[in-house]
């Protein structure tokens, strides 16, 4: 998933709440 975000510090929160389902998915943030 490629995103343009104003506040990169919110990326983990975005992943936890929407972009990934931590129960079944791992994620890695690349900036």
């Amino acid at each position, binding site marked *: 998933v490629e995103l343009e975000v104003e506040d990169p510090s919110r990326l983990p929160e975005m992943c936890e709440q929407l972009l990934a*389902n931590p129960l079944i998915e791992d994620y890695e943030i690349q900036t």
Partner: protein
Amino acid sequence: MRFGVVQFPGTCDERDAARACSMVGDAELLWHADADLKGVDAVVVPGGFSYGDHLRAGAIARFSPVMGEVERFAAAGGPVLGICNGFQILCEAGLLPGALLPNTSLRFSMRQTVLEVQRTSCAWTRACETGDLLSVPAKHMSGRYYASQPVLDEMTDREQVVLRYASDPQPNGSLDGIAGVCNAAGNVLGLMPHPEHAVDLLNGSADGLRLFESVARVPAA
């Protein structure tokens, strides 16, 4: 009893769900953008491809305005049924434990399944007996139920596994053959097969109707 059937962009089984509900009560559609359940007595979140399954099945739909109301309704003990994509949405929303992974075949699976009833104190299986076999069709790409072992142990202790596949092979590779689970209180049920497509013998089975009858006609013990 008045049923509300939730409709998201991409939902495709709302008419069959409403018809099934109307066979045991009254039914009306609830639009995803309206934070209003219109005073219904039970909610059905039907199958389909809400928001085109973007990101993951159910991931976007759980944030719809109507889902906030569904969560409050469920917390107050209101009966909620999630079918297929509706099950995926309820899991994403945290109303049910676990998640649905892609089928082990990595193919869309469509077949008649046999479900064995595991628990009858759930609001949606009160018209059944433990061990009853229900013939219900399933059609999905991501129906493989998964929960971590600690969660699964907790679910077992609380008798939250309501339906298991009795047909072999099962359609998706679900953990322990799980086809449907409920919340701890027993008022929220999710399942991958489609009971709303099995309410008329002309379609091969009317077994699915028993889930709707459970809520509408059988009082809680």
